[in-house]
């Protein structure tokens, strides 16, 4: 019986820039930052209230995982905003939207009442998009 999800990957164009975005803008925490050798870094972050869900910020680099020209294709897909990686939650969407905007986060959709809830959409520094919802929104 599977009990939990504890790691999930987000593919990023640049780990240093992603570090700044997820830590300094979104306010996440570093879980593990391990150098695996030249140009190889295992970097995971966690949402502030969810320390057991590690989001692995994976560099898209040529190697075992991305062979041939797939790394460049993947970079292009990420850059052009192809991938939505998930839904984050906050207590107050209007306040969080104002705060993140003040920190320079780019939103493609402001807080909007939808039939499924109250939602905004933002992009990370690579182009991955996320939904941001408000807990218990009517």
């Amino acid at each position, binding site marked *: 019986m599977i009990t939990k999800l504890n*790691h999930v990957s987000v593919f990023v164009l640049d780990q240093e820039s992603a570090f700044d975005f997820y830590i300094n803008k979104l306010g996440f925490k570093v879980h593990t930052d*391990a150098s695996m050798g030249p140009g190889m870094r*295992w970097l995971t972050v966690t949402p502030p209230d969810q320390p057991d869900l590690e989001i692995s910020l994976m560099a898209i680099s040529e190697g075992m*995982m991305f062979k041939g020209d797939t790394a460049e294709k993947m970079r292009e897909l990420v850059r052009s905003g192809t991938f939505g990686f998930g839904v984050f939650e906050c207590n107050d969407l209007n306040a969080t939207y104002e705060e993140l905007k003040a920190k320079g986060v780019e939103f493609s959709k402001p807080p909007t009442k939808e039939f499924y809830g109250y939602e905004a959409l933002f992009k990370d520094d690579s182009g991955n998009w996320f939904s941001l919802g408000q807990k218990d929104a009517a």
Partner: protein
Amino acid sequence: MRVVRAKLYIDTHFSRPIDLDNIADEACFSKFHFARLFRTIYGKTPHQYLTEVRVERARNLLAEGSTVAAACFGVGFDSISSFTGLFKRRTGLTPAAYQREALERQAAIEAQPAAFVPNCFAENHGWNE
């Protein structure tokens, strides 16, 4: 949104002496109205939030090797004994014990990084070879 601006002010100026009453004044709120509004949005009072930001930052400084005194004063606390008490209440460890654990973990990561990566990811990247 004035409460958001106050929160961002705390995020930026936590290491300085912050008079939370002043923040309420600047935001043109009564102290109590401000604290209530802040709590509705962030789930804690401005004072609790300021302490949380300071302790979080102190954790980073300690993990980077700062002395307990440097971490304490560097994040805006003005007494080591109150810093130690607040830090322990929030993290379960004294600053010195927290630093010991953080530095040991960092040394373990440096010595054997693969032990901290789920094997599936390491294999995909060829990090096991």
